[in-house]
């Protein structure tokens, strides 16, 4: 932190909050609220003010184990070292003002707003530690000798509340036995469904630290699984075992005070021996899991980055783009998008800095030409409140101010086409994948014997490569399928499917990535929601619903693609051409009516085409 503060290229703004973000990659305009410290930067951290302050409140940095004053320094190495007045607890006796020989204390300070133009934003909100009070079986908060790993960390710190002396809170004596309980809150469907990742190593480290300071203390670690995935971790685990730390496989069920108030008893199962175990100890340490920073939600809504189901920020793609947010130019460092330990946080921070410099070092940024464009003269939002496109866009690339047509920021748009598929007025064009092009493909592919064909819509990332994979692996499937590639299944309109049936298609397949693999965050789920009602619609029109299928196929699932096409071909044969033709004829009027408001479809009608070919010929 000191290094960062001294770096000429870095300006630290502590005690400040990001209030507003406008613009897009390379051109962000941010508003920052700098909160008043009531102490100017001339403060030399002499501690005179602290000595006269009459207020004592729990010190947050020491987990509330020691007191601090209303004017204080968060911790000794804090950057900047300037003190701060905690106005919530201050009684404004102004003794500190009198005590300060530098006249650095200034209660007239107010909130300062700073506006900046920046090229990229890195979110590094970190994680917070889970409060284990809801784990009532472990009795944190009820029994004094049940503490968290973070509490123990402070107790062992030479500059901590006890100057590094390990005590148990009930009687301040040095405990003879210490037990760690792993996964306190983590890997628990009732609390945190995920593995917090850092706690195994943190507990082993603290256990070894305790062992070094107090060689006679008996230490046990109760665990479900010990996870040591990174470099050197397994060796560290081995060292802990060699140092004589007891590892008991079994998640403790309950912690209760010992008989006659002596120590604590842990009820657990020793899984290796399949035996019930009552383990006596003096101090119980809960290895609490990591939870998202409490500011994440609010900050996320300000920079339009969504949270995932665990409450951490959602990255663009968990495997391929773990540092990027869905919005270009906004990146994550450290535990912002999931619990991480120190080496992983450091490498992600460096990665985020590199991703940012990629933008900052260039005069201009090349983006993909596949982007959305709104026809302002058609947009419904001018007359009444619509905003469907903005609501569905997974990337926050569309703004719909009331009374104005929707506006796409091309630098944010990735061209998935969800907006175009959702627009009630069909007034959004996706360059290179516009409606006209897709309708043209539908028509061309269904020119001859359409009732014998399976028209397959495939997304560019998963299903199309999946079909390709079937070919590369020389898998056989019937030759009746015809594919249309779109960027994402989110691009597929209901009208595309209906038009295919109007043109007499035998079967229609819509395929895309699996929901969790969608390359456009949530676009696949929008497609699923949008196209599901088609089964009913088709049935009402007299078309067998089995002639329409939605399947999610990944790029590696060539065999699945081949199988689906084979199955569909069998269905096609079973229904028979005669019945397909009958169904199509019966549904024709309804389909015509449904598709009548698409003006350019007439371009493909027989007469226009004949005329066009006559003109050419």
């Amino acid at each position: 932190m000191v290094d960062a503060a001294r770096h000429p290229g870095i300006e630290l703004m502590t005690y400040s909050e990001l209030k507003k973000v406008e613009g897009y990659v390379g051109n962000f305009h941010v508003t920052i609220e700098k909160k008043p410290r009531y102490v100017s930067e001339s403060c030399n951290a002499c501690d005179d003010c602290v000595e006269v302050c009459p207020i004592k409140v729990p010190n947050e940095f020491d987990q509330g184990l020691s007191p601090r004053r209303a004017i204080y320094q968060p911790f000794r190495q804090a950057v900047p070292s300037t003190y701060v007045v905690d106005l919530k607890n201050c009684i404004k006796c102004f003794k500190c003002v009198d005590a300060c020989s530098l006249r650095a204390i200034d209660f007239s300070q107010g909130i300062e707003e700073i506006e900046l133009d920046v090229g990229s934003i890195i979110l590094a909100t970190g994680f917070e530690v889970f409060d284990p009070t809801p784990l009532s079986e472990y009795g944190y908060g009820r029994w004094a000798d049940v503490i968290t790993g973070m509490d123990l960390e402070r107790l062992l710190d030479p500059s901590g509340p006890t100057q590094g002396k390990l005590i148990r809170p009930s009687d301040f004596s040095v405990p003879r036995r210490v037990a760690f309980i792993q996964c306190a809150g983590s890997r628990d469907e009732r609390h945190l469904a995920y593995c917090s990742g850092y706690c195994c190593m943190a507990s082993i480290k603290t256990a070894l630290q305790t062992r070094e300071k107090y060689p006679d203390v008996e230490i046990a670690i109760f665990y479900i699984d010990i996870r040591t995935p990174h470099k050197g971790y397994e060796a560290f685990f081995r060292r802990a075992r060699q140092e004589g730390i007891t590892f008991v496989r079994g998640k403790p069920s309950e912690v209760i005070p010992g008989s006659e108030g002596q120590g604590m008893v842990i009820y657990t199962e020793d899984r290796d021996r399949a035996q019930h175990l009552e383990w006596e100890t003096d101090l119980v340490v809960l290895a609490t899991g990591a939870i998202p920073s409490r500011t994440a939600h609010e900050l996320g809504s300000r920079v339009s980055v969504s949270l995932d189901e665990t409450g951490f920020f959602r990255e663009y793609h968990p495997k391929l783009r773990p540092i990027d947010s869905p919005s270009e130019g906004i990146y994550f460092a450290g535990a912002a998008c999931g619990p991480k330990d120190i080496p992983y946080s450091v490498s992600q921070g460096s990665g985020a800095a590199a991703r940012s410099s990629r933008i900052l070092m260039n005069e201009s940024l090349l983006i993909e030409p596949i982007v959305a464009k709104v026809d302002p003269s058609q947009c419904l939002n001018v007359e009444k409140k619509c905003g469907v496109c903005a609501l569905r866009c997974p990337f926050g690339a569309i703004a719909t101010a009331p009374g104005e047509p929707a506006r796409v920021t091309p630098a944010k748009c990735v061209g998935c086409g969800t907006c175009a598929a959702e627009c009630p007025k069909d007034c959004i064009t996706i360059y290179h994948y516009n409606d006209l092009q897709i309708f043209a493909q539908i028509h061309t592919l269904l020119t001859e014997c359409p009732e014998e064909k399976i028209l397959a819509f495939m997304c560019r990332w998963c299903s199309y490569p999946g079909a390709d994979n079937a070919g590369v692996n020389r898998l056989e499937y019937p030759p009746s399928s015809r594919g249309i590639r779109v960027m994402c299944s989110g691009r597929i309109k209901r009208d595309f499917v209906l038009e295919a049936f109007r043109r007499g298609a035998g079967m229609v397949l819509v395929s895309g990535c699996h929901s969790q693999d969608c390359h456009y965050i949530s676009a696949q789920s929008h497609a699923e929601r949008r196209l599901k009602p088609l089964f009913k619609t088709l049935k009402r029109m007299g078309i067998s619903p089995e002639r329409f299928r939605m399947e999610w196929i990944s790029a590696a699932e060539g065999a699945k693609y081949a199988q689906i096409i084979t199955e569909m071909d069998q269905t096609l044969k079973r229904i028979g051409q005669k019945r397909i033709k009958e169904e199509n004829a019966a549904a024709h009027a309804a389909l015509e009516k449904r598709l009548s408001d698409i003006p350019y479809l007439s371009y493909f009608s027989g007469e226009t085409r004949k005329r066009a070919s006559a003109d050419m010929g």
Partner: protein
Amino acid sequence: MEVLKQFLKEQDLPQRARACYQCGVCAGGCPVGRWRSDFNPRLFVLNILRDDITEILDHHSIWLCTSCLTCLERCPQKIEVSEIVVQLKNAAARNGNAAESEVKKHREIMKTGWLQNPTKRILRVRQELGLPELPEGIGSSELNHMASRLDWQEKMETLRKRGAQMSAGHEDHDESKKRDSRVD
């Protein structure tokens, strides 16, 4: 045994147990397991997952479960351990392995309408308190009427018989289909 496995599958038991990662919280907190090392809910779940229930069904320890639901409450994967034990009891009963005490309990209910007869101590305390004497049961005619309408006696008989058949290694699949599965 295949029939019983099928029965457990019908209750969707293996599926409901599948998320278990064998942390042992159920066994650690089990008040029965504290005293009886052969009662281990974790191992019951494990055996169901491994599709190997022969031993547990013969084992009388499953009948020790008091349904205190501690395991259910503390399971980090929200597995209904206690429900699994209940279904195991059902399966064991179909196998003719119901615990003696359970059978006795059933008989007692049909006879007196009471789940448990008052013990000597209770009678003595009542006397000391000057409470009126208890009748010989609260009358089970209605229960018996219901039971006769449901062919209860016959079903109990069949169960007992099938238990004997099963232990002899003759399983009658057709018969099992006809029988109501919830009589135990």
